[in-house]
């Protein structure tokens, strides 16, 4: 049975701040309702992840990003055609686009939580700033999951614009 809410963190645990997405889910794993919420992690997004969106009511992607204005950003995702064709990794918007192409239907409501990272070297741990950003993002996500409802999340995303 597919669980209605999917939390999908992606990044490499051995690449410094790239670990932010999977680490956030590691911290939250014991606090979420396992009957309603599925947690998945991977190094990077790929085409087959579109199939993980099937029959979901709500999806949250969690990623490290260098371009956040603050500690983290939270936004509603829309399907978008990824212009890069040479990549081994896809954007979450492109995964939604693949879903739309395969299923011929609108994907479930999907949101992206981007946590600000700075250093991505092989073998590095989290940078000091990223640790602070992660703590803030954990609190934010914990609150978010208290109301796993797309309308509430949309309002939250708008309020952070």
């Amino acid at each position, binding site marked *: 049975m597919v669980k209605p809410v999917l939390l999908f963190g*992606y*990044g*490499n*645990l*051995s*690449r410094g701040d*790239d670990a932010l997405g999977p680490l956030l889910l590691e911290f939250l794993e014991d606090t979420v309702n396992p009957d309603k919420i599925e947690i998945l*992690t*991977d*190094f*990077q*997004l*790929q*085409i*087959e992840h*579109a*199939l993980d969106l099937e029959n979901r009511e709500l999806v949250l992607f969690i*990623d*490290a990003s*260098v371009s956040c204005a603050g500690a983290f950003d939270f936004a509603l995702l829309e399907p978008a*055609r*990824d*212009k*890069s*064709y*040479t*990549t*081994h*990794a896809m*954007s979450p918007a*492109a995964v939604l*686009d*693949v879903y739309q*192409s*395969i299923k011929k239907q609108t994907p479930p409501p999907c949101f992206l939580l981007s946590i600000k990272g700075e250093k*991505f*070297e*092989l*073998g590095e741990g989290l940078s000091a700033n990223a640790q602070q950003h992660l703590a803030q993002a954990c609190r934010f996500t914990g609150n978010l999951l208290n109301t796993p409802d797309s309308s509430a999340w949309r309002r939250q995303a708008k309020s952070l614009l």
Partner: protein
Amino acid sequence: MYEHLETAENRENLKRVVVDPVSRVEGHGKVTLLLDENNKVRQARLHIVEFRGFERFIQGRPYWELPVLVQRLCGICPVSHHLAAAKAIDQLVGVDPENLPVSADKLRRLLHFGQVLQSHALHFFHLSSPDLLFGFESDIAKRSIIAVLGEYPDIGLQGVKLRKYGQEVIRMISGKRVHGTGAIAGGMNKALTKAERDYLLEDIDQIITWSEGSVALIKKVHCSNLPYYDDFATIRSNYLGLIKPDGGLELYHGGLRAKKDNGEIIMDHIDYCQYNDYIHEEVRSWTYMKFPYLLSLGQENGWYRVGPLARVNNCDYIDTPLAEAARVEFKAHSEETMIHSTLAFHWARLIEALHCAESIKELLHDPDILGHDLVAQGDKRYEGVGVIEAPRGTLFHHYQVDENDIVTKANLIVSTTSNNMAMNESVRQVAAEYLSGRELTEPLLNNLEVAIRAYDPCLSCATHAVGKMPLQLELIDAEGKLVDKLVKHSDGQIERLDG
């Protein structure tokens, strides 16, 4: 060959074109071209800069951490690093391949077939099929998996599902799609349950049918424009890979075989633990990547190719019927003993994907796959070598440990390093034969990328933030003035900037 284009004479009089990364962290390819006054290419080089630091990442860690740790070197082939490391640390606990429990050996092979299947599916359907189906110089908006899904929905969907199936094989065996812990020193840590086996059996016939269809597709594409496909980026080379004792295709464990471009055997059934006696690595001043070569042929003539084309060229047969029939057809399309077409990497890759699908079915029906005798033990050793045929080619892991089981020395030869010279040669061939004298355009960029992409180099080790092939072309005249500049950003957008 095109080695004369590696270093030009009178370089100060030439214009420089740099195809350079604009991404923010390591993991890039860069191409530099030097042009004369008639825009003829006089020098071409591919620089790959991501592999520094792998050995340092491993040294100082206890050996038993390695199968999990090394998976993080690569986001695309973590299982290959996982298994190469496991084979090396088997030796550290005194277990040679022939002493691995039968069920553990078969589970590892099943895991590996799942990995190669998903990686080959990703490479062909996602990364290469847009070029092959729409044309190398087609509208850039068309060159994506989304466009393939739009115009060839069945092919696109099969690519997605083949990849997904390979990931499911990995998940059933190692517990997770990535970061799994299937292989340990001396064996495996978890048996496959009957329910897991039956789950994988549900779809395997469909997977074999789709894999067979993909071979038919690439054959049609290749043969529909045979002279072009046989010439583009094509070079003559030696080939290296693992081989079964009887000469059959082998992806998991065997001896090393190398053949010359005319098919003559250079070495055969060599114990890979002695690889240092046969393969050396040359350092060149202009790149961080080493250039491996076969010692017996020397630096100049000893470079070789690895990967699907090398494996299918080197083997005498494939032990699954559909893939063997496809191999025979593949070899018959050329009058030569060895196939040298660089674009034939794609064809060979899909023959291997079919072989993986057939082998998965065979292993799932093997009673040993459900066995619970999974770990062997032996006496501690201080050195271990693990070699495996990763999707992109032969992968070497070599470790030394101290009395506290801490890794003191590590050496990795990844397949992209083995193909370094060959990729440089292919880039030079394309530069000389297809780009020379042409105006700087995005399709020009794509011709270079098509050549590099045929090898499927792992430029992406290993964050999702990199692994794109962001490129920047600058045309600079003899006085150093910027004449033209074209940037392809990491999100794929192309921007022309005036010089």
